[in-house]
């Protein structure tokens, strides 16, 4: 299938010569690539290739030993996770990281925490600005709940939800932050065909409607080739390919290292 031929003039984030190791294990070796504003960028590669580690570097959860990341024109060697959040980077996790004791609604509300500013005293009284703020953000969260079609589980504790729905709630929590850059770590892992189609639709809608830049990791090749504008391929912590889905499909190194194996 054809990629969606679109052009993206501005670079939102660029990764320069990133290397990351854990003890003796080199998770990432000298990786460079960029993410353009508005595109859907996929990172693929076999298990253990370093894909999740790459996302963890981008949002400041891991600190690479070498290299730098330039985001929105600011070059940094390191960033703290909450700084990344403040700068408009949101993400989901390979192993769902929801707040299990809280409801769907509260989980998604936490995504708006950086926008909720009323102090302790207003909160204690729950009047005036505190009340208005809560209602205003509740409205925004309800729009997300509607968009993701999860109205029926609004009040359910997320710990009790099936896997597919938890993934959706986690996407909701990330969307609630209204991020500029959305990092999705295997958003469709473990889903059936129908759930995958829904998830693809949500991702493309977010990208189209809000112009959110998306960087996602995915193992399902047909999904990747369908929804992404450009693809980075990692193998054993090294970059072995970078380009449009059509280019990647023809790339010899990628075919031998990855597509040939089990696909």
């Amino acid at each position, binding site marked *: 299938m054809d990629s969606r031929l679109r052009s993206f003039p501005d670079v939102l984030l660029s990764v320069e010569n990133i290397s990351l190791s854990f003890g003796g294990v080199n998770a990432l070796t000298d990786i460079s690539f960029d993410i353009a504003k508005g595109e859907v960028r996929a990172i693929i590669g076999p298990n253990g290739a370093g894909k999740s580690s790459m996302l963890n570097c981008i949002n400041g959860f891991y600190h690479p030993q070498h290299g730098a990341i330039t985001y929105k024109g600011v070059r940094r060697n390191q960033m703290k996770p909450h700084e990344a959040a403040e700068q408009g980077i949101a993400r989901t996790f390979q192993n769902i990281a929801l*707040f299990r004791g809280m409801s769907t609604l509260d989980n998604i509300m*936490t995504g708006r925490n950086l926008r909720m500013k009323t102090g302790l005293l207003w909160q204690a009284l729950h009047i005036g600005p505190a009340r208005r703020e809560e209602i205003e953000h509740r409205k925004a969260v309800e729009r997300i709940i509607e968009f993701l079609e999860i109205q029926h589980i609004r009040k359910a504790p997320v710990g009790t939800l099936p896997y597919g729905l938890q993934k959706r709630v986690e996407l909701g929590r990330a969307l609630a932050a209204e991020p500029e850059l959305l990092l999705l770590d295997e958003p469709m892992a473990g889903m059936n065909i129908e759930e995958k189609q829904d998830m693809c639709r949500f991702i493309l809608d977010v990208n189209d409607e809000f112009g959110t830049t998306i960087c996602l990791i995915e193992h399902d090749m047909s999904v990747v080739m369908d929804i992404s504008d450009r693809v980075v391929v990692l193998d054993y912590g090294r970059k072995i390919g970078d380009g449009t889905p059509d280019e990647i499909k023809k790339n010899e190194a990628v075919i031998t290292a990855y597509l040939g194996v089990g696909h």
Partner: protein
Amino acid sequence: MLYREAGQFKTDYAADQQIFPILQDRIFVFGVIAAAFAIVPAIASEYLYTEILIPFLILSLAAIGLNILVGYCGQVSLGTGGFMAVGAYAAYNLWLRVPEANNLVVVFLFGGLMAAAVGILFGLPSLRIKGFYLAVATLASQFFLDWLFARVKWLTNYTPSGSVAVGDLHVFGWRIDGPADRYLLILGMVVVATIVAKNLVRGHIGRSWMAIRDMDIAAEIIGFRPLRTKLLAFAVSSFFIGVAGAMWGFLRLGSWEPLAFDINRSFQILFMVIIGGLGSLVGSFMGAAFIVLTPVLLNQLPGWLGVNMSTAMISHLEFMVFGAMIVFFLIVEPHGLARLWAVAKEKLRLWPFPH
């Protein structure tokens, strides 16, 4: 009246975000509060006030404070007794040394604020350590505070054995004298404190605590500051506990020594939170009621059954009942009596058609 949600459609988010969205709950709670203010004073005996209602209310407040820290924010603490002592002695010193401040509301708030400050200090290790190790660190704070009030004589006004006494108490010109006055003052303050606690836990501050409790790494990645969030929980929790400690000293005991706030007190409040339900304000009241009422009932039990039982035997029984309950709740139902109550309500909502 039937307990039903049906027909009560929420027309806006403000209505949906009320503390008690279901009308029957609202009526029930307002009814209980109205009765506590209006009917109880007309019928209560001195025994009921001093042995049951006053301890129940004050310990409920302490349990709410501890529940904010343990149940909502997931930080274990064994220092509750120490924080109550800070509240009580801070309040005492203000009352003693600043005669102009002889207004219990002011005195108690001061006790709470000092406890909050100390709570922040002893909460600092929570950035680095969790669970069992944090419990041990807070236990150390308990022993340190015990030592402080036993050794630093200025804090207890150089009285022998650190025993202090208060009297001639006022609130905005109202002289607090008999048990009924004390009960009404405590009731009023506990109602206000509970509303404040509820407001905090249902807003963005409460969500920040719960996020840290459920998954601190994810919380940090979506923008919460772990240290700030935890310290705020320590501060708010210790504030409530400090106010409860000041009330315990001033309105329950009248005169007290550091022993009143020793490690046993810490465990007592922690048991209330566990039995009542972690992360539930209603549960804090249930846990306090359980812990206050169980010994009273056990004392009556031999009389009702017509058997002879020594007081030693009864206090052993007490330990066994508490021990069994705690093991039960920790293993089977960490959300405590509050959850059992919620399940019962859910059954009632479906009754008589369970399917």
